[in-house]
Every structure is written in structure tokens, then in C-alpha cells.
């Protein structure tokens, strides 16, 4: 399967990067015969073994004629939507401190619901605002959890 071969390649690159990073750790072997590198080196070797095992599994599955990685147009649309959600969530987290929990959460939820719960704008707007306000009061004022106030000073 093509997907599994890509996994093998990515994992192999990861193992090489991990080995390189391990080599950069300065060694001070006082009272510890192994130092901070030995265990990571074992892990790197184990990751390569796992990659080889997966590659063997891939070869066997290939012989059995398993389907490859083919994305239909619909799948691509779904992936784009999930990619967009990831970027929107990243932006939400990025503005979390500066805009504050209340504002950023209300805006974030409003857009998310507009996309994933279409056609119910009044319910979506109310839910986004009430949830942001309600959760802020519950967590900050009742449970004492620290959340950023941001542009609103309360």
C-alpha cells in the first residue's frame, strides 16, 4: 500500500533526525555508565526495526493486491475542510492571549458553527456567545481557573 510506504519513508527520516539530535547531546558520564544518549540510541534502533517490519508487511500486502492511496474529489473536499478547521483553530489559539478567552472563543465558535451547523445563524450566534460567557464565568469565577481576559478588562 502506498500509504504504508510513505509511513516507512517518513519514519526513517524521523529516525535519522533523532539519531542526529542524539549525537548533539553533550555527554557527562559521572556516576552513570550510560549517560543521556544510550536509551535514545536504543529507541532509534527500535524505530528502524519497526520501519523494516512495516515494510515487510507492506510487501506482503502488496502481493495480496491491496488498493493504493487514491483520493476521490469528495475526500479532497473533506481534507480541505479539515485543513481549514486546523488553520482556524491555530488562529484561535494564536489570538487566545491577546484577544482574550471570551472574544476569541465567541468568534471561533461562531465561524465553526456557521460552517458545520449551517442555516441556523440565530441559534449558532446565541450558542457561541452564551457558551463563551457561561464557560468563562464557570471556570474563572467559580472554579478559579486562569483564562486570559484580553481586550476585555474583567
Amino acid at each position, binding site marked *: 500500500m502506498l500509504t504504508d510506504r510513505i509511513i516507512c519513508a517518513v519514519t526513517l527520516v524521523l529516525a535519522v533526525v533523532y539519531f542526529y539530535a542524539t549525537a548533539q547531546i553533550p555527554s557527562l558520564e559521572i556516576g552513570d555508565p550510560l549517560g*543521556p544518549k544510550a536509551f535514545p540510541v536504543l529507541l532509534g534502533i527500535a524505530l528502524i526495526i519497526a520501519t523494516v517490519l512495516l515494510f515487510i508487511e507492506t510487501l506482503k500486502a502488496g502481493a495480496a493486491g491491496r488498493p493504493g492511496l487514491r483520493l476521490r474529489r469528495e475526500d479532497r473536499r*473533506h481534507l480541505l475542510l479539515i485543513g481549514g478547521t486546523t488553520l482556524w*483553530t491555530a488562529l484561535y489559539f*494564536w489570538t487566545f492571549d491577546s484577544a482574550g478567552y471570551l472574544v476569541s472563543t465567541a468568534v471561533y465558535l461562531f465561524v465553526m458553527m456557521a460552517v458545520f451547523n449551517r442555516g441556523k445563524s440565530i441559534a449558532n450566534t446565541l450558542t457561541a456567545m452564551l457558551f463563551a460567557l457561561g464557560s468563562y464565568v464557570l471556570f474563572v469565577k467559580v472554579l478559579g481557573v486562569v483564562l486570559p481576559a484580553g481586550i476585555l478588562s474583567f
Partner: protein
Amino acid sequence: MDTLGHILHGFDVALMPINLWYTFLGCLMGTIIGILPGIGPAAGIGLLIPITFGMDPTSALIMMAGIYYGAMYGGSTTSILINTPGEASSVMTALDGYQMAKKGRAGAALAVSAIGSFIAGTLGIVALTLLAVPLAAIALKFGPAEYFCLMVFALAAVSSLTGKSAAKGMMSTILGLMLATIGIDLQSGQPRYTMGVPELQDGVGFIVAVVGLFAIGEVFSNLEEHIKGKAEIIRLRGKLWLTREEWGRSIMPIVRGGLIGFFKGVLPGAGATIATMISYTVEKRVSKHPEKFGTGMIEGVAGPEAANNAATCGAMVPLLTLGIPGSGATAVLMGAFIMYGIQPGPLLFEKRPDLVWGLVDSMYIGNIMLLILNLPLIGLFVRILYIPTGILLSLILAISSIGVYSINGNTLELQMALMFGVVGYIFRKIDIPLAPMVLSLVLGGIMEQSFRQAMTISGADPRIFVGSGISITLLILAVVMVMLPVVLPRLRKLKEGPEDLES
């Protein structure tokens, strides 16, 4: 005080009003988490850990455990009513449970899963109570080398039994162990793989990883399912109880499922999931009408549901007595223990018997509470399923942000959680199991410590790992676990006949 005295004192702790309240709260939240799509017990516990900071550790752990077994109870509801198992361990329940619901017997299916869960859960706690003390006594004899071998065995079992491919399970385990090496090395004081980021010096935040992998990643997967199509919710009709005939058919599957579940739960690996599969297969084999399974047989709901809940009690055995969790959710529970500065394991029985037995005894009470919550009040909880999925999933993402931010007040950790979420989403797509990664992230630090301690004792001689009977047995078992997925299909083919093997 002797063991019996400690067990009885545990009831004093569990029956304290404040602990009763937290048991109830845990069971209630667990039931809701079990019903909610996009969030399971692992993510639920992970999200709530920061909120419990400052609480008494016993009360906090009683609540966390309540969420764990409560979610297992609640998980069957979605399987029965919308044919969408919230957890892998509820897949078997959906086979006959959903068919029962379609025939208008949703009430009976929900009732048998609640009663089965209660009976098997209680049996499981009795077995946990009986097994914990002798096992903890054996574990006291373990040195660093034996502990290392035990962790190798646990990780080998989890990686080979979780998911479809043993190699992918192994990859997930090793990646988790690698993540655990990030941060300042406690023995040498050297920073490792921190890339100059100060926030990484304390290592990868455990809650950050759990919330990312299990909550954010799961929500992404669910959002995709949501845009693909909507599952039809079957409305609850009729009495929420069993007929005399249905009860008669259910009792033995419950007992058998309970036994299978408990013993599978004790062993590391996909305990609850495999237990439900074995229970379903056993019920089908002993039934006079195996052909009717999959069309709404109550035995097919009673057995797996009992197995599922007894397995959660079984999984508490290695967690409490050895300090080794055997699944994703118990790994998160262990993370919670460690965050409160408590190391689960045999010494805990000596140092904090009030905590251990208070926790175990609270499970008896929690089981009764869950029966009440899940029988007369299930109609109330089912309403959660009527909340539009698009709203529900968006709210879970916002709650995740609170859970992560409240640990250190750091937005970098929020971005890291999102990265783990993307990894979790991709891993689900490409069939790499997540439980081994979380388990090894929790165990990684202790595992490396045991490894280095053992090597220091032996003067860097690796033969210390085969220096005792316990170590050798555990390593052999680890090899058996790794070989199992390769050998089992071949044995099965051999059994079926040489022609099949050739083909």
C-alpha cells in the same frame, strides 16, 4: 492494620460526604462523556485534570476513576441508539443492540447493558479487591531490571494487540518513548531535544498530548464523519426494562462476559475491546441460534457490555499494584496520579492504603450510582444526542483550549496540542493506534530510569536483564506478544487445512 482493616477503612474514606459527591460527579461526567461523540474517557480525564488541581488527591482520583468507568457505561448508548460506537470496546454492542433498537426494544437493550455492566462491574471490583494485595506483594520483590522488563512486556503487548498492524503499534510505542525523552535529563541535567525552546525543558506536557491526540484529533475525525452524512437517532420507546424471558437469556452471558472481561482487563493490551469480541464469539458459539446473532439477540448485548465493564476493573489491577497501565485511558489515569505526586505501584499499598482502598471502595458505590443514572435517567442523557453535532464538536474544541491553557497559561502549549490533534487525526486515517503512544509517553521516563539504574547496579553489564527468573519470564512473554500477530493467523490457517496455507 491488616488488609481487611484497610479495606473497611477504605469505605470510611469513600463514604465521606465530599468523596460521595466526587464519585457522583465523576460518574455523571463519565456517563455524559461516554455518550458524547468526539470525546472518550482518556480525553475526558485529561481535560479535567487541571481543574482538579488544589483538590485533595484522594477525592480527585475518585472522581477521575468515576469518569473512566462511567464513560464505559455511557459508551453503549450511542452504539444502541445511533449505531455509532463511541469507543472501540462498544463496537460489539452495536451489532445486536442497534438491531434491537430498530425492532422497538431499545429500552431492553439499554436496560440489559446497564444491569450487565452493574453486575459484571461489581464482580470485577470484588476480584480487584482480592487480587490487588497478593500481586502488590509480588511486585515488591521487583528491582529496576525486573521493572524494566515488565514495562517492555506491557508495551510489547499493547503495541501488538492494539490496532490492525503490529509494526504500526510498535512505531506508535517507540514514538511515544521518544517524546518522553524530550526535556532535561534528570540524571545528567542535560537538555535533550528541546531545540532551545524553554517550554520544552520540562518535557512534552502529558495533558497537552492527551487532549491533542484524543480530544482534538477525535473531533477532527468526527467533523469529517459529520460532513459525510448524518446518523439517524432511534427514539426511545416503551418500558426501560427486560421481560422475564429476556432476563433469563441475559444472566449467563453477563456472568461469562464478566469473567472474560476481568481477566482480559488485567492483561495489558486492548483489554476491553478484545474482551468484548471474545464474549460475543463465546455467546454465539454456545447459543442454540447462532445464525440469529446480528439481528437483535439480547445475549449479544449482555455479554460484551458485561465484559467491557469488568475489563475496566481488571485494568485497575496492574495500574494500582504494579504502576503499569495497560491501556490509553488507564495511562491517562496514571498521568493523573503522577501529577498529584503519587506513584502508583506496590509501595502505594503500604504508604497510602487510605487512598488505594478509598478509591477501590468508591468504585462499589459508583457502580450503584451508575445503575441509577443509566436506568431511570437514561432518557435525560439521550437528549445530549439531539444537540446538533456541528455545535457539539465545536464546543469540545473550545473546552479543550480551557483544559490545556489552564495548566501553565501558555499559548505555545495550545499550539502543541493542535499539532498533536493533527497527528492524532492522521494516525487514525492511516491506522496507527494512539493508545500505545500515550502509554509509552507516560511510562517512558520511568522506563529509562529503571534501565539506567539497572545498568548502574550491574556496572553497564546488560546481562542484568536476564539475571532473574521474573525478568526472563517477562522478556519471553514480551517476545511471545510480538510474535502473536504473526504466528496466530498461520496457526489458524494450518488448522483450516494445508490447501488454505498453500493458497
